[in-house]
């Protein structure tokens, strides 16, 4: 008798892959970086009157001595935290665009706590300060996640807007009530000596927060792939319907990843203060949030991959700086190269030349 035309029923057609994903990703990434480096060389050839010098300093400069090398690694640290923050959000299919505000507020709150407790023991007070920085970031991002869960407000836009407002407010605080009156710089007073993290690679500013960054990456990797929160987050990120069917609390996993993401961003700011700058300067964290997105992209949202990705970005910045100091190009060529990497990394079509073909039943 009558047979059914069921529109949503799953078919039996398999999905074939021609190459495994890791191989393709590495291959694609190598191509991307290759193109980026060729472009860098091209830029320097065009812009510099002494291209050989420039190119040399760009690629080799960051390794030239302890100072440059250490500072390069140091610049990578906040990118590791923000990269982790973005990757945990992306993996769960939530979008945290408030990174800039979360990093900045983490920095300010950490500074404020340190300044408020000038006589406490370094370890205790420092931990409190970092916890506070972590907390404010978690709160800000978590708010967006909460609005998404409760009322369906788009967390991408709400986190961006909140961040925009926060940045302005913090700018005001740093240049106003919290400004250090003893100097003419736009910064808060310096935090107490006991809160400053040990810089172990003098004369560079590389401090022990580097180890915390590595620990954070390992922890996040462990969380995502070995614990049940990570499993549930990833399942929600890949297929919300399947997750709900399987009994996972999908609503909760709209909020938790945002909280984690914000917390990591807050830590980025906190460590930047306690490790390197020892105060909250106006706009000193700018770019850490946005670059975190680039880092997460290159790392394909894999927490361990964030480490080399962050170093890559910091390397580009450091190379540009070295080239600038020793030659005649300007630092901003790093931004140009980074933007090309962004484009290449996200242009899927390049990968589809080699990539697996996803086919579902027609």
């Amino acid at each position, binding site marked *: 008798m009558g047979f059914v035309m069921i529109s949503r029923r799953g078919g039996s057609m398999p999905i074939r892959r021609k190459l495994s994903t890791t191989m393709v990703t590495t291959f694609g990434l190598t191509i991307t970086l290759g193109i980026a480096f060729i472009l860098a060389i091209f*830029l320097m050839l065009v*812009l510099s009157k002494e291209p050989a010098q420039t190119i040399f300093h760009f690629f080799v400069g960051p390794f030239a001595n302890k100072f440059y090398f250490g500072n390069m690694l140091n610049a990578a640290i906040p990118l590791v935290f923000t990269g982790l923050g973005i990757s945990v959000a992306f993996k769960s299919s939530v979008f945290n665009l408030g990174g800039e505000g979360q990093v900045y507020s983490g920095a300010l709150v950490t500074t404020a706590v340190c300044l408020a407790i000038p006589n406490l023991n370094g370890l205790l007070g420092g931990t409190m300060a970092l916890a506070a920085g972590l907390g404010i970031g978690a709160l800000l991002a978590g708010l967006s996640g909460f*609005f998404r869960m*409760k*009322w*369906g*407000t*788009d967390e*991408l*836009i*709400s986190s*961006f*807007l*909140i961040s*925009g*407002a926060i940045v*302005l*407010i913090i*700018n*005001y605080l740093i240049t*106003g009530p919290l400004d250090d009156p003893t100097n003419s710089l736009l910064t808060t007073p310096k935090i107490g000596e006991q809160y400053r993290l040990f810089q172990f690679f003098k004369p560079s500013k590389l401090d022990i927060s580097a180890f915390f960054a590595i620990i954070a990456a390992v922890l996040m990797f462990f969380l995502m792939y070995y614990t049940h929160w990570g499993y549930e987050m990833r399942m929600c990120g890949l297929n919300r319907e399947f997750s709900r069917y399987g009994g996972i609390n999908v609503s909760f996993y709209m909020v938790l990843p945002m909280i984690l993401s914000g917390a990591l961003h807050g830590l980025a700011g906190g460590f930047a203060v306690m490790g390197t700058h020892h105060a909250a300067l106006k706009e000193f964290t700018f770019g850490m949030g*946005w670059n975190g*997105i*680039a880092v997460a*992209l290159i790392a394909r949202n894999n927490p361990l991959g964030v480490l080399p990705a962050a170093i890559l970005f910091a390397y580009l910045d450091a190379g540009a700086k070295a080239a600038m100091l020793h030659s005649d*190009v*300007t630092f*901003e*060529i*790093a*931004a*140009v190269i*980074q*933007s*090309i990497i*962004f*484009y290449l*990394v*996200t*242009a*899927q*079509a*390049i990968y*589809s030349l080699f990539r697996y073909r996803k086919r579902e039943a027609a």
Partner: protein
Amino acid sequence: MNDNTFAIPLVHNAVGIMTPFLLAATGGLFTELTGMLNIALEGLMLIGAFFSVVFAAATGSLLMGILLGILATMAVALMFGVISLYLKANIFISGLATNLLASGLTVVLAFQLFGNKGVIRFENIQKLPVLSIPALQKIPVLGDLLIGHNILVYVSWAVLFIAAVVIYRTPFGLRLRGTGMGKDTIASLGLNPTGYQLKAIIISGFTCGLAGAGLTLNLSAFVPNITSGRGWIALVAIYLGNKNPLGILIACFVFGFAESFSNYAQGAMNMPAEIILAFPYIITVAAMIGYSIWRHYRAQA
């Protein structure tokens, strides 16, 4: 006449300040209507700002500067569009990349051409002509506020008007809106939705180029990152204005007024500028949340 003596310059300034917002938001409206989140407005405006003032100085003509600046911006927009639509890049990421590229490239070129990474002043350019249109002055209440602006301010109104006509009164506009509301439907009619999206991006390049020109030609100088977030504000204005021309006009005015007021308040009152500038963000996020709550409870009923 008005006896509110401080309000007039405040509002008058606001009308001038909102011009770049309005232009960028108008272009952004096209992209938004085709269903794309276009965050490259900021970067595109910066490109327009740089090239228009550079070309104006090079050719000695304001008009040429503006036209060539717009052309350059549209070229960058084309690249952005092709990468996002045809190379299947994530439009958000490529938008970020465009902003980053603009900010880096303009400084690199400035350094290359003028040996200066900071503020570059151009001596030989005229200022934007300030128009005095008597007809406008006759409008009650608003009259005084509408006169005495530079030409690009009036151009921005014209652009908004033309955009509204195009969007709501032409086949192109109908198909554009259709693309945002039903890509498959448009495709099934034999039309090319991706083509409309690309055109929308290029249009946003046009208006952002104009917006950027307004910033630098007003000062006869290029300041690195002169756009400082205006592109983002334009995007917010589109949402706050509920994605229609009149709403955008009002939203842009709100932002313009906020900036004007903060300039004023910095001097005269003791209210911090940044707090005032933060207001529009807060208003928008509150409006968004309020709208979500309303929509949520309406669906439940």
